[in-house]
């Protein structure tokens, strides 16, 4: 696989540039990771535990080894290096050893000459498990006599924020609420896949779908017992990620089998396996209490957050920290108390998904704001305006908000978007009623509702992480034409990053032809394509590299001008490129801090805010829903590409709408009962309304060109806005997302809590494993 380049002429910054990879993807020419192929390659398959909590009595692979086409069957004992990996802590076995902690945990891997042979061999492995008591409920995990998922206990992290006065004098009105959100799947259309090719040097080349090549390598190499330079990662075509490609899936398995068999080994999960092959959005339970003065000014917010982290740590420690810091919403609140816990259970591991802890708390704090507005008889939009954060506002973490914060503007601009015209029931297409293609109403039972939500999300990494991104830009003549090549390890996963980088180069260097070299680990890390960070981080690095290229060009131009022997006339760009100009640069955002013992500190670099208003029509007898319109105003800093901006807002909104109306990974004793797109429903085009879109462009001092990453904040607010609209339409409490038809028609009441769980005792604000281990994992990622 030589360096694959993408090439297409695009516009500069601010242009509605079409996607570099758009035509290839639409026509089917684009090579996704699942399309990877090598002569003589083997196919990998994985034996996963069918139950969630068990002791492994025996694994008998004799029949599998004798099975047709099989070249290797590996167990935990075959892992040459450390049998542990993980994003925040190395707590997850490559192959289960002694215990399994979740249903779907890999126990053995097979390589065979065909996928069918590999799967057949997996079926011939005898796995003798002794079921152990498990923890399947996040509140049960906190009980003293609960089974321990890990030796260190079931509390993974507890974050405590104590800001202002816990007594909160001055509040005249209080509202309380209990909220739940379900486990959500990222549902990227391209499942996990990769191809490991053994190298002649004892190392391995891995072509893989991921969000961060370098952090994959950091986890893979120690398990293989190889130095990092013997493990070379190359980006394969990524068919969507949304957080689901942050954790290791088949990377280590493929490399192990390739090194064992000395043949290329490919893994490519099907949809059902994919549900076990990546982490999900944390289910949450949230208790909130808001106090305000009669004029609507918030005085106090106290929140108790409980997140189900599942069986392994993944990025849960960072997710729960985010949730804690955003629990009070994008509002000025002088007194904030938050107790936020993420626990281990024997459910599938949870970790990164678009919004990263913020959608759960937004669902709760926005419902609280609506309750408060009702108690105070203040318009809900007005109430939000009266409390909106602004630059300089003191955050619940005790520090003034440093960057741009056009919260008032996003609220006002969103509220000013015209409501959709009333649609008479008569004469409508049957498809345009709640229930859509099912044809369940011809106008009976329709109720309209409007809901509003505001929220925010940190951009880039927080809590003191040294966040950087490297890029190299080369300007050269190719057959007499000037060409710029961009080389970065940053991952394009469908979000449009490569198009944006090409726009930056065109604007900075004035060249027509921009080529993007395929990302790999032969250049320094670009950091993850996550946390809304890559437009600013990789974009910032490319911009800096372009500046250095320009500096070199002007040095060459001065040298040419000083050369008296040269014939007259100013030098053309072509004259300066007698040899290529190459420059590498690193972009960093300002350094952040860890929490102190009171949860105070400058923990986030900067923020993206968004407001959305949803208009819904509910069939109140059947509980079916049609969303008529989502109006969105998003704090973009600067819109680099209007098409990309609209795509992110619409896509992010669809994912939030999905959690509001239908998306839920269902579990029975830790086993996923709907691991398919037949039963895990995501919105179709008939479920997704037009998005009326406004960009608020207040430059962000931290962002190159003043831009901000906007990929997450629409998801953060969409769930809250849609459910608020459903409450408005039905008058029901609806405190759980997704809302079921049963709740909309009143067959099921709201989710009820048995009481606020006690705050666990922990050694401090850091994740609990960090007090037990000695830094062998990737703790610096937190």
């Amino acid at each position, binding site marked *: 696989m030589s360096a694959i380049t993408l090439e297409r002429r695009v516009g500069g910054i601010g242009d509605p540039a079409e996607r570099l990879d758009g035509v290839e993807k639409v026509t089917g020419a684009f090579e996704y990771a699942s399309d990877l192929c090598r002569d003589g390659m083997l196919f990998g398959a994985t034996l996963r535990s069918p139950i969630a909590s068990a002791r492994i009595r025996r694994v008998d692979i004799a029949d599998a080894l004798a099975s047709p086409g099989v070249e290797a069957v590996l167990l935990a004992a075959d892992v040459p290096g450390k049998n542990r990996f993980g994003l925040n802590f190395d707590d997850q076995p490559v192959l289960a050893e002694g215990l399994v902690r979740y249903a779907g945990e890999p126990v053995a891997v097979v390589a065979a000459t065909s996928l069918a042979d590999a799967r057949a061999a997996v079926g011939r492995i005898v796995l003798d498990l002794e079921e152990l008591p498990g923890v399947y409920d996040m509140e049960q995990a906190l009980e003293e006599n609960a089974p321990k998922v890990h030796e260190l206990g079931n509390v993974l992290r507890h974050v405590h924020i104590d800001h202002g006065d816990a007594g909160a004098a001055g509040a005249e009105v209080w509202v309380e609420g209990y909220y739940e959100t379900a486990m959500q799947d990222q549902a990227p259309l391209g499942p996990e896949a990769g191809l490991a090719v053994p190298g002649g040097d004892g190392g391995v080349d891995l072509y893989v779908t991921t969000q961060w090549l370098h952090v994959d390598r950091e986890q893979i190499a120690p398990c293989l017992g190889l130095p990092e330079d013997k493990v070379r990662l190359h980006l394969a075509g990524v068919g969507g990620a949304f957080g689901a490609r942050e954790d290791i899936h088949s990377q280590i398995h493929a490399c192990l089998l390739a090194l064992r068999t000395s043949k290329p080994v490919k893994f490519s999960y*099907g*949809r*059902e396996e994919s549900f076990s092959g990546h982490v999900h959005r944390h289910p949450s339970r949230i208790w909130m209490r808001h106090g305000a003065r009669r004029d609507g000014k918030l005085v106090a917010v106290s929140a108790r957050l409980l997140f189900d982290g599942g069986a392994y740590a993944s990025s849960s420690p960072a997710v729960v920290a985010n949730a804690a810091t955003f629990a009070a919403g994008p509002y000025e609140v002088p007194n904030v108390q938050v107790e936020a816990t993420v626990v281990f259970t024997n459910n599938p591991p949870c970790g990164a998904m678009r919004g990263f802890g913020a959608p759960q708390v937004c669902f709760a704090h926005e419902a609280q704001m609506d309750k408060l507005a009702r108690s105070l008889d203040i318009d809900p939009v007005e109430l939000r305006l009266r409390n909106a954060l602004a630059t300089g506002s003191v955050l619940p973490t005790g520090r003034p908000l440093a960057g741009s914060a056009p919260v008032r503007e996003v609220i006002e601009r969103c509220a000013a978007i015209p409501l959709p015209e009333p649609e008479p029931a008569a004469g409508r297409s049957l*498809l345009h009623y*709640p*229930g*859509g*293609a*099912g*044809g*369940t*109403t*011809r106008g*009976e*039972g329709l109720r309209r509702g409007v809901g509003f939500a505001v929220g925010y999300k940190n951009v880039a990494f927080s809590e003191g992480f040294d966040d950087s991104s490297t890029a190299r830009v080369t300007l050269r003549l190719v057959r007499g034409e000037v060409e710029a090549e961009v080389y970065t390890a940053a991952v394009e996963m469908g979000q449009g990053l490569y198009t944006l980088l090409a726009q930056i180069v065109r604007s900075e260097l004035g060249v027509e032809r921009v080529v993007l070299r395929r990302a790999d680990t032969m250049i320094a890390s670009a950091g993850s394509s996550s946390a809304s960070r890559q437009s600013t981080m990789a974009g910032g690095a490319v911009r800096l590299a372009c500046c250095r290229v320009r500096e070199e060009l002007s040095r060459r131009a001065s040298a040419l001008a000083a050369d008296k022997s040269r014939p007259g006339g100013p030098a053309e760009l072509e004259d300066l490129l007698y040899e290529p100009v190459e420059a590498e640069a690193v972009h960093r955002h300002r350094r952040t801090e860890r929490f102190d013992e009171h949860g105070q500190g400058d923990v986030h670099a900067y923020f993206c805010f968004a407001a959305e208003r949803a208009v819904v029509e509910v069939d109140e*007898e*059947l*509980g*079916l829903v*049609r969303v008529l319109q989502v109006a969105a105003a998003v704090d973009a800093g600067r819109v680099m590409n209007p098409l990309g901006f609209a795509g992110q807002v619409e896509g992010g909104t669809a994912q939030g709408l999905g959690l509001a*109306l*239908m998306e839920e990974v*269902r579990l029975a004793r830790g086993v996923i*009962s*709907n691991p*398919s797109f*037949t*039963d895990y*429903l995501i*919105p*179709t*085009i*008939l*479920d997704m309304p037009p998005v009326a879109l406004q960009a608020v462009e207040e430059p962000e001092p931290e962002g190159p060109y003043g831009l901000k990453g906007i990929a997450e904040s629409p998801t953060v607010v969409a769930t809250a806005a849609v459910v608020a609209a459903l409450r408005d339409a039905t008058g029901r409490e609806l405190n759980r997302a997704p809302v*079921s*038809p*049963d709740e909309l*028609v009143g*067959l099921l009441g709201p989710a009820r809590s048995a009481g606020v769980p006690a705050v666990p005792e922990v050694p401090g604000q850091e994740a609990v494993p960090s007090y037990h281990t000695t830094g062998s994992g990737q703790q610096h990622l937190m």
Partner: protein
Amino acid sequence: MSPESFLRPTSFAEALEMRAARPGAIAAAGCTDVLVELNFGRLHAGELIDLTRVPELGALGVEGGTVRVGAGVTYDSLIRTAGRELPALVAAARTVGSPLIRNRGTIGGNLGSASPAGDCHPPLIACGAEVELASATSSRTVPIEDFFCGPKRSVLGPDELVAAAWVPRADGPQAFAKVGTRNAMVIAVCSLAVALHPSSRRVRTGIGSAAPVPLAARAAEAHIAGHLEETRAWETKAPLQPAAVEHFAELVSAAASPIDDVRGRAEYRRHALRVLARRMLTWCWEEYRREPRWAA
């Protein structure tokens, strides 16, 4: 799958010979169910008989008062050609999957899979259809309600193929509706077909996805038929009395024996059937009153 195990008959007679010779083979047309079952590992692809090249199966023709819908007729083709003769069946076809699935999936496949959630089944029941089954040596027709024996089980023999559905042409208004938790591409949480038959003075129903097999709500049908006779409503086209409609809806709901599963709860299914029955009887009756072409 090797070429030897992928069989492609080009006539129905050849297909039936293959079927007789290979009782373990999977017969498939559009494959919209079979591929899902293969992916889930619930079916194993030993041998597969591809029926898409059997021209006889794709025929749709009217014979007297009945439409013979070949087993290979796709949903898309039904929608394009049979809207006037078979309105409930066409309404059901419109609710199937996406345009791509409707372009591949067939009525024969829907019957062969015999899923309790099969979208075609409730309208076939409400229309009083019959299923034509054929083997290499014989053929038979089975009333639709006798065709299903349990979830994904039917009377189709190991040497038989579904040849066609015989569906009486609509002699009155019909409706089909399907409840799902998203607005398209969804397996029914429950579904209902209602058909008025003024010529036989009957109202017939078909319930889907709310019992082990699709079924008719006989008590509801008898109740409303009695009411219409008593009130001479077939002749007068008088409005239905709300209490009678409500009782019909109760009886439709009571006819179901739904379960709780990942798609919905039994209680909701009963509730939704009650709502659908009330609405759909009203739609059909109002159309009967409005349309001069419908008469007893």
